[in-house]
């Protein structure tokens, strides 16, 4: 309670300081940058164009029914919400950014609908390979290692790595990175491979860009090796961090991932890409979102695609450089903290979404999983105390496994592992899988709770029931189980609270915007703005749900301890009935 009071107090104070930037809006051509002058010597090979196709299929010869789409007529795209300007979710809750803007234009050219689904980068390629998504769009730098998992389209962007360090760091370039430093990367990215393989160092792995950057700003890590787009999109003027050096990799262009064996779709996307290069769409989006000089020797699309007409970014950059950019004064630690937690506008922005989207989804996930957990848990409990070992034994094994695994492991194994197997059943929708995973997990705990409750009922109860002529199952159902459940109600409520919190893990499976539960709604807005206030708002929603439940548990518990004394009215009511 004190914590909430404190948070609310800090809201009021921080409000005037808030000047929020939507990181998921196109920065415009004015933000153009020249080729980085501090380019480190990079590993560029002569075989740069090994994968780029010489030409493409004519657009009008493509049969969109033969693209192997999981939903016919719709391009289902797995993407991320937290890597502006390439990929992000805007304040209208729409997935956009340079990469997704291009993809939208290509889909239009092909006459396809497009559906974006948010997921985690670490699982994206696997989900594309298993055709959970038709396309993976996440500024994916192509590497040989990745080509073993998925196929790629022609390049639509290029990447260099940026080295981001806290202001005033002794690290001044890639060559200064050394063992013993904490170097942050996002798990599963090319940067991770670069740090491990090329630099031979051991990086600190993070689940997403936002968390790495937050850790860098608070100096929990010494450096961040980032894709340049992410770095330039994330590092804001006045932040206690700077991009210190860039390195360029020509042979690893940025492309969309498609299942290896889905050549028709790769060809179609390549045709679409050349088409939007030819009609100027690529140039327009590029100038809007990621305006920077093209590196020498690189252009987007197939080898036959026209060279895009772009403004002279070097000149624009030079002009802006000379203009006083009002070098933002570094913020004090306190005002940074206040802004990070207490930005009132963001609370106002987050709360309607949390209420309309997050809350219903969290409740649906939790309640559905609880129903599965209760039903399966009861079966496990009854099997667990059975005299037959072939009932007892499987119940034991199930309980041991599902109670012994971390929640996130169960969610990922069932959601990602089972997903492709039962894809036909769930229409590639991870939502029911998330419910199933949560329910299966809850069942193990609920089963143990029920079992302890049932076993706490005196044997005389079963004996008396059997002596009246009730069979064993009927005695269980009418006499033993109802008493057992009463005794474990507080424990069950606690389990329900755990389940409510665990429902946030479903975000690992990739949900479309309308399926997002409380945590992901907060997380997306947090990713979009780099500000923690939306997460605090989501946290408050959780507390509003869990604190009353906790008190309900205490109330039930207390009532059961005092005993359920029937009132005088009960007796009166009955005698009245008799008189009538």
């Amino acid at each position, binding site marked *: 309670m004190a914590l909430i009071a404190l948070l609310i107090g800090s809201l009021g104070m921080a409000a005037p300081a808030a000047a929020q930037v939507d990181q998921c809006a196109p920065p415009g051509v004015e933000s153009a940058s020249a080729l980085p002058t501090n380019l480190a010597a990079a590993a560029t090979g002569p075989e740069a164009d090994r994968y780029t196709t010489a030409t493409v299929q004519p657009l009008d010869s493509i049969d969109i029914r033969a693209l192997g789409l999981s939903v016919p007529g719709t391009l289902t795209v797995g993407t991320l919400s937290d890597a502006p300007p390439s990929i992000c979710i805007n304040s209208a809750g729409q997935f956009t950014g340079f990469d997704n803007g291009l993809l939208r234009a290509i889909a239009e050219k092909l006459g396809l609908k497009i559906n974006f689904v948010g997921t985690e980068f670490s699982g994206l390629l696997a989900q594309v390979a298993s055709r959970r998504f038709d396309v993976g769009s996440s500024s994916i730098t192509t590497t040989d290692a990745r080509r073993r998992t998925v196929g790629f389209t022609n390049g639509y962007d290029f990447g260099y790595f940026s080295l981001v360090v806290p202001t005033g760091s002794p690290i001044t370039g890639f060559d200064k990175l050394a063992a013993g430093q904490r170097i942050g990367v996002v798990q599963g990215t090319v940067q991770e491979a670069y740090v491990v393989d090329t630099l031979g160092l051991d990086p600190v792995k993070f689940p997403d860009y936002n968390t790495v950057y937050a850790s860098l700003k608070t100096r929990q890590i010494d450096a961040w090796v980032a894709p340049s787009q992410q770095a330039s999109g994330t590092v804001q003027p006045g932040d206690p961090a700077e991009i210190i050096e860039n390195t360029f990799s020509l042979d690893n262009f940025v492309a969309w991932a498609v299942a290896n064996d889905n050549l028709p779709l790769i060809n179609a996307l390549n045709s679409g890409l050349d088409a939007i290069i030819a009609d100027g769409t690529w140039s327009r989006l590029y100038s809007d979102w990621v305006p920077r000089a093209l590196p020498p020797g690189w252009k987007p699309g197939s080898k036959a695609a026209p060279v895009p007409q772009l403004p002279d970014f070097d000149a624009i950059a030079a002009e802006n450089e000379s203009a006083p950019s009002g070098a933002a004064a570094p913020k004090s630690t306190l005002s940074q903290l206040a802004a990070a937690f207490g930005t009132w506008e963001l609370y106002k922005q987050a709360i309607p979404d949390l209420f309309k989207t997050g809350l219903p989804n969290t409740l649906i996930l939790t309640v559905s999983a609880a129903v599965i957990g209760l039903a399966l848990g009861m079966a496990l409990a009854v099997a667990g105390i059975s005299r037959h070992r072939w009932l007892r034994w499987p119940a034991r094994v199930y309980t041991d496994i599902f109670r012994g695994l971390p929640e996130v492991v169960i969610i990922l194994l069932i959601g990602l592992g089972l997903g492709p197997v039962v894809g036909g059943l769930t229409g590639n929708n991870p939502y029911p899988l998330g419910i199933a995973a949560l329910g299966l997990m809850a069942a193990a705990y609920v089963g143990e709770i029920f079992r302890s409750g049932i076993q706490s009922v*005196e044997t*005389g*109860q079963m*004996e*008396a*029931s*059997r*002596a*009246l*002529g*009730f*069979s064993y199952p*009927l005695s269980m159902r*009418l*006499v033993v189980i*109802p*008493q057992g459940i*009463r005794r474990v109600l507080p424990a069950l409520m606690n389990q329900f609270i755990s389940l409510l919190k665990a429902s946030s893990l479903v975000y690992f499976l990739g949900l479309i915007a309308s399926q997002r539960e409380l945590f992901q709604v907060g997380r997306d807005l947090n990713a979009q703005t780099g500000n923690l206030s939306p997460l605090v708002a989501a946290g408050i929603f959780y507390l509003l749900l869990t604190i009353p439940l906790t008190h309900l548990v205490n109330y039930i518990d207390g009532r059961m301890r005092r*005993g*359920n*004394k*029937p009132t005088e009215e*009960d*007796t009166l*009511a*009955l*005698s009245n009935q*008799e008189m009538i």
Partner: protein
Amino acid sequence: MTSPVSPVSLSANDIHLSFGPNAVLRGVDIDVPAGTTTAVIGPSGSGKSTLLRTLNRLYEPDRGDILLDGRSVLSDNPDQLRQRIGMVFQQFNLFPHRSVLDNVTLAPRKLKRLDAGQARELGLAQLDRVGLKHKAAVRPSTLSGGQQQRVAIARALAMAPEVMFFDEATSALDPELVKGVLALIAELGADGMTMVVVTHEMGFARSAADAVVFMDHGQVVESGTPDQVFEAAETDRLRRFLSQVL
């Protein structure tokens, strides 16, 4: 009051029962003619309560036969057999999560398919018989021990049993409540119920029982009329037991 079911005879021949290496019953014979009361006495651990639970097949005997109305019941469905034999326990074992009336009507409703109205009528009649109709709506935990045991008796009688078992029905009661419950049991016997009463109340065994069986170490040591057992004990074991309890 009770639906008119004529009581039947109960007998058992050479009943053996072991729990693992523990021989609890070692060849018990018992014969209870229809409409009579047999009291079973004996020291703790002599197998009296186990005998009752074997006779209604809560435990299956290892050997021997059980006859109800002259017919063996060992091949019957045990659940159906137990519907014919009412049982009252030392610890009452009322269902604490249900009202007094529900305790009495649960079995008739679920096993005899009585509708709610019929069951209620039957239940209230049974409660009236034990003097507790006014407590029908309360939870058993609010009643005294004597009242709870009366409800347990009403619960057993509601199934219109042909035989009644009492397993130390007054042992857990406060002394001042014992008399009333014993009087109720005696009254039931006087009404012509076939009953087996395991008891430590020698006064009751003497005055209310038609026959008394003395058990020790899983065997029937002596049996006969109350006068024979209490006045003319033949064995040292019975004499020693009587000298301790009387």
